[in-house]
């Protein structure tokens, strides 16, 4: 009897270390942020101010507003990534030679650290860099400019690098999606004499619908909550505040301006946004599982 009693509790010993670590790094900080978000700190003392921090961030703070707008502007990369990754995945799924070689080469951006990428593109995007040189050679010289140094264009430089680096994941995802499509559908279409284009538009793309849903939501999440390092390394929010994004604003409020209350409140707002995305993604993943 005693042994049985012990047995019932054994599973908890197995999961206990993971629970302790996860509570310390996820649950405690969330609670900590939530409490701090109702305070204003001055001289090491906290004064309870209710929802004033949230009110300020949502209604007044110009830098936070422009940060949100920059995140929204960067959302342009979502459709670009979607179209390009389907395009390349379709090409790589054709029965061609050297697929493995191409796949390895085009994966390189994904595995190089953002610090390295930032330092290299910093050079390539300079006024005398190769990107402006190529623009000049192809008759697009009017487009040549100091991409990172000018407030209006720095955000486009960021988007270019994000697309360049994040695209391989999408390609691999859609290649897997394409290889999961039932071959019988294509064989049936072949008998009906369906062309390559019709195959693509009427079979491949509709069959990828659930992967597309997943990928779009995933990238929206990336743009709102996982691009800190790109911004920090390439522009550090500048010139001026022209490329500040939500994550950088949370970081700056805490470390550069020492406004812990505001920083915590903004972290909570970002968490709520991401929570909505996670919930959507969970529903979509469930959809994928039910289909397959």
């Amino acid at each position, binding site marked *: 009897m005693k042994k049985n009693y012990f047995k019932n509790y054994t*599973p908890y010993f197995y999961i206990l270390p993971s629970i302790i670590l996860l509570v310390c790094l996820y649950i405690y900080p969330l609670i900590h942020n939530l409490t701090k978000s109702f305070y204003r700190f001055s001289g090491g003392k906290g004064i309870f101010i209710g929802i004033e921090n949230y009110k300020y961030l949502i209604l007044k703070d110009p830098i936070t507003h422009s940060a949100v707008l920059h995140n929204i502007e960067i959302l342009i990369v979502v459709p670009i990534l979607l179209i390009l990754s389907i395009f390349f995945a379709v090409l790589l799924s054709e029965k061609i030679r050297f697929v493995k070689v191409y796949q390895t080469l085009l994966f390189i951006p994904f595995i190089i650290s953002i610090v390295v990428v930032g330092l*290299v593109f910093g050079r390539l995007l300079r006024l005398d860099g190769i990107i402006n040189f190529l623009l000049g050679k192809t008759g697009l010289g009017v487009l040549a400019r100091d991409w990172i140094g000018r407030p209006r264009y720095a955000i486009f430089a960021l988007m270019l690098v994000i697309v360049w680096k994040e695209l*391989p994941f999408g390609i691999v995802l859609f290649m897997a999606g394409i290889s999961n499509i039932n071959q019988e559908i294509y064989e049936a279409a072949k008998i009906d004499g369906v062309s390559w284009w019709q195959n693509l538009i009427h079979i491949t793309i509709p069959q990828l619908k659930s992967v597309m849903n997943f990928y779009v939501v995933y990238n929206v999440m990336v743009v709102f909550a996982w691009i800190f390092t790109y911004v920090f390394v390439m522009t550090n929010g500048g010139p001026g505040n022209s490329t500040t994004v939500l994550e950088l604003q949370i970081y700056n409020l805490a470390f550069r301006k020492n406004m812990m209350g505001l920083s915590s409140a903004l972290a909570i707002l970002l968490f709520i946004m991401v929570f909505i995305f996670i919930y959507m993604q969970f529903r979509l993943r469930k959809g994928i599982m039910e289909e397959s």
Partner: protein
Amino acid sequence: MLSLKAKLSKIPIHIILIIYSIISIFPFYYVIVTAFKTKEEIYKNIYAPPAKWTFANVITLYTEYGFLRSTINSIIITVLSILITLIVAVFAAYAYSKMEFRAKRFLLSLTVALTGVPIMVVIIPVYVLMSRINMLDSYVGISFIYATFMLPFSIFLLSSFFRSIPEDLLNAASIDGCNRFQLLYKIILPLSKPVITTLIVVNSLWVWNDLLIALMFIRKSEMLTVNVALNSIGGRYANNPVLIQAGALFVAIPMILVFIFGQKYFVKGLLAGALKE
């Protein structure tokens, strides 16, 4: 046998893929050719391979800029954090996949849901906590942070793999006298080599390449990881591109090796989060 016409129709596809491959590797090419040029040559010849290859930049980087120490730091932190994650995740996944207990489903879905929580949302309170208990600039401290951020994904991947191991196999072994712990390391772990390799490849890439956490939790120059060291060299010696690109090269190379040897596992790991339960 493909007809000639079918073969010719593939040519545009190859042209597009070759152009895209060049775009993908050009920055890395730039890193290599710059890293081995002299400081003078860089102004005359930016993109072509060096007229005379020199290792001076690499030597300076490692001897005068503390890059050797940073590389050792990065290796220690990567290995230690992956070890911690694997040990903690294996036990948790074993319980979640092969044992029955109350609140199991709830705890597992909560753990997996944490995969998506952005680091920036939780990291500042962790920083405050760690500085209060004097765990900044510590291998163990930062490794536990990395390990914990890798846990949700690792537990998710391991528990779904463990679930696929047939009960009959475990029942037979336990009739032969294996206890719960022996089942884990005699039966389950040997079968799990592929999924563990996947976790090592994916996680080492993430830890090695991370900037944010290393930036916050390491202050002393002798504790810097390669990416933080490179970032500060990039900021401070912007007029010395050959040195910067030599650093960039040696930050990138280890992960390119990991990727080349573990490509199959790496792709599997990426897809696991998206396509499979």
